[in-house]
């Protein structure tokens, strides 16, 4: 079992992750079609702005957004999502493993930095759990499934932190860490973790009032 988790299951998880996402992308493009414009899209020529005007414009554009309404959650969620992706990719230990198996690796962050960033991710994760447990507006739409997703997202970082500091039985913690990572990869395309990909599709490709881009597609 240990060998399976630390061996064959790793490529299987990556393949399911990649194929699952490809399947979801194909499905998305089959379900949506190119938007037919009934009128030419409004094109406004950007006026030349000085730096101070540009900064003032950026600050003004935050009015009424989540940055103004709930800055704490916005900062926590932004930090969490950025580091959730960056930490595992630029972790020295992961890159050494990549180098040993495939002979290639990415640039790595110093271990002291990734250690701190892992704590930051764990603080964010604890914050989200606190919201789910104690904020009535979040609790009212929370199900067991949400807690399960929370565990799937938190487990790789918690076990990774334990493994790095060699707390508890190293071998067991490492196996659980690898398993947690595999479970996360496998579940991303098929659960609400899929918003990792669909956030970009919904906000950039589907055209509506809150799109970041023009939005060239429609359902």
């Amino acid at each position, binding site marked *: 079992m240990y060998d399976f988790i630390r061996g064959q299951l790793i490529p299987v998880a990556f393949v399911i992750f990649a194929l699952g996402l490809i399947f979801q992308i194909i499905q998305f493009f089959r379900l949506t079609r190119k938007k037919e414009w009934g009128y030419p899209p409004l094109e406004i020529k950007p006026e030349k702005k000085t730096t101070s005007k540009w900064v003032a414009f950026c600050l003004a554009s935050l009015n009424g957004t989540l940055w103004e309404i709930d800055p704490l959650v916005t900062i926590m969620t932004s930090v969490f999502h950025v580091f959730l992706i960056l930490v595992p990719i630029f972790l020295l230990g992961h890159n050494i493993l990549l180098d040993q198996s495939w002979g290639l690796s990415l640039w790595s962050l110093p271990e002291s930095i990734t250690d701190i960033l892992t704590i930051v991710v764990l603080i964010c994760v604890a914050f989200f759990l606190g919201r789910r447990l104690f904020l009535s507006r979040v609790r009212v739409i929370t199900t067991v499934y949400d807690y399960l997703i929370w565990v799937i997202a938190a487990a790789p970082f918690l076990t990774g932190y334990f493994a790095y500091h060699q707390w508890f039985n190293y071998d067991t913690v490492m196996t659980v860490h690898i398993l947690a990572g595999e479970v996360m990869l496998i579940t991303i395309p098929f659960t609400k973790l899929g918003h990792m990909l669909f956030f970009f599709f919904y906000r950039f490709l589907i055209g*509506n009032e809150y799109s970041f881009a023009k939005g060239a597609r429609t359902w």
Partner: protein
Amino acid sequence: MSDQEMKPVDTKQIKGMLDRKKGKMKRYLSHCAHCSLCAESCFLYMAHHKDPQYMPSYKAIYSLGRLYKKRGKVDRKLLTEIKGIVWRNCVLCGRCYCPIGIHIPSMIAFARTILRSQDVYPQLDEVSSESWL
């Protein structure tokens, strides 16, 4: 008892309607992170002293979400319950903002369409304990 309340629910028709938009709607429902960040964008939520049942996500989950969960096998009692959520608690102004990009008004509008197909909608002479707006 009015004709509206007597008519049996055509669960097959509901299932058919749900299936037709399954690709879009189930995707939206399954990608909702249940974060509640859409709450403040709803003026009814703000006007009702931040009552969670006016949150856009709550309205989508407890209307269309329930219809999908039950795969259309619903009774008139549930449809009447959903009626209050999609008509009284939402005016479909389209101002709800989801950070992930889920288009909540289309979900509420679709729930209304399903309810209307079963003749469940607010009547002009309906007596309600509270205002519909």
